[in-house]
């Protein structure tokens, strides 16, 4: 198109606005979640490999490197969840007649509420 100026896009576009950085952090946390899932799958695999293999794997996992990796993965997963629960009121607005449920309440009703309930049930089931 002649006579029109197209401004170039820099490769570092994700640094241009704080919101873009927050977006990238949110997306990157999913790698940690995926990484943890792989560890979980390997754990299940070892469980199938017999008691000795499983014990050896558990022993390896209790090393400081793996501990740190788990803490990092936990923080990433929690942050990922918080961002998604924050998005729930936008993606699934709830109406009571003409009134839209306020965002914090909707996040509790459709995000944190069910999450904590399921967590509580699992904790009860494991500890009972």
């Amino acid at each position, binding site marked *: 198109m002649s006579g*029109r*100026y197209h401004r170039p896009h820099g490769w570092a*576009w994700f640094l241009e*606005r704080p*919101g873009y950085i927050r*977006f990238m952090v949110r997306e990157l946390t999913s790698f940690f979640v995926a990484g943890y899932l792989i560890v979980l799958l390997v754990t299940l695999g070892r469980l199938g490999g017999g008691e000795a293999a499983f014990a050896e794997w558990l022993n390896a996992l209790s090393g400081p490197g793996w501990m740190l990796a788990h803490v990092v993965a936990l923080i990433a997963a929690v942050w990922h969840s918080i961002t998604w629960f924050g998005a729930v009121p936008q993606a*699934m*607005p709830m109406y009571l007649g*003409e*009134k839209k449920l306020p965002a914090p309440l909707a996040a509790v009703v459709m995000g944190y509420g069910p999450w904590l309930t399921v967590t509580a049930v699992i904790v009860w089931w494991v500890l009972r």
Partner: protein
Amino acid sequence: MSTELTMTLEVFRYHPETDSEPRFQAYEVPYDEDWVVLDALNWIKDHVDGSLTHRWSCRMGVCGSCGMMVNGDPKLTCAVFLKDYYPRPIKVEPLVNFPVERDLVVSLDGFMDKLEAVKPYIIRGDVNDTSGGEYLQSPAELAQYKQYSMCINCMLCYAACPVAGHEDEFLGPAALALGHRYNKDSRDQGQAERLDVMLVGEAIWGCTFVGECTVVCPKHVDPAGAIQQAKAVGAQEFFKRFVAPKGAGV
């Protein structure tokens, strides 16, 4: 007016007939607490440089024509005050993610095509049959889409969206929110037609929910929310069309 005080506006200039590249020009403008950035631009045009080109009309956040980048943020220049920046200089640029026609004026062509693509009007089969009277709508039904109907087409959301800047096929926040607005209207029957457009390629799926469109929208439209809802409808429809393709008689 406290005429002694001044501040600097650094304004993006580009005249295609003489400039191969844009440049920035600094202007000293009177500082007035009550002035918005648009007042300063108009003052430059009236008193210093008549060749400065920018769009505006209503001066009250209604027409949507005065959107520009103000210190890197997409803003309605009739709604941002000099006092929010004083005494630091203010950098004014045309909205990013659009080709520049001249100075602060961007091309609207692509945006208008995208708005048109989502068929932003009520579609019905019985449009010529008025025997049933008006199409009634309850306040609760109105509430379902009212927020998405407040758009003034200012395009700030496109300037805030990294996908709109990188992916031409993406219809963009305002157009998708407008499509969703009509899909949610109880009087409308055109959802299938609109989804034919919205579900193609990157048209809606290009959205990665960065969410900055909603942050910058001066009318609280929440295009990001509208797009995620439209994606959910689209995903259901996509699945339905997958299991029962059109014409399969289901």
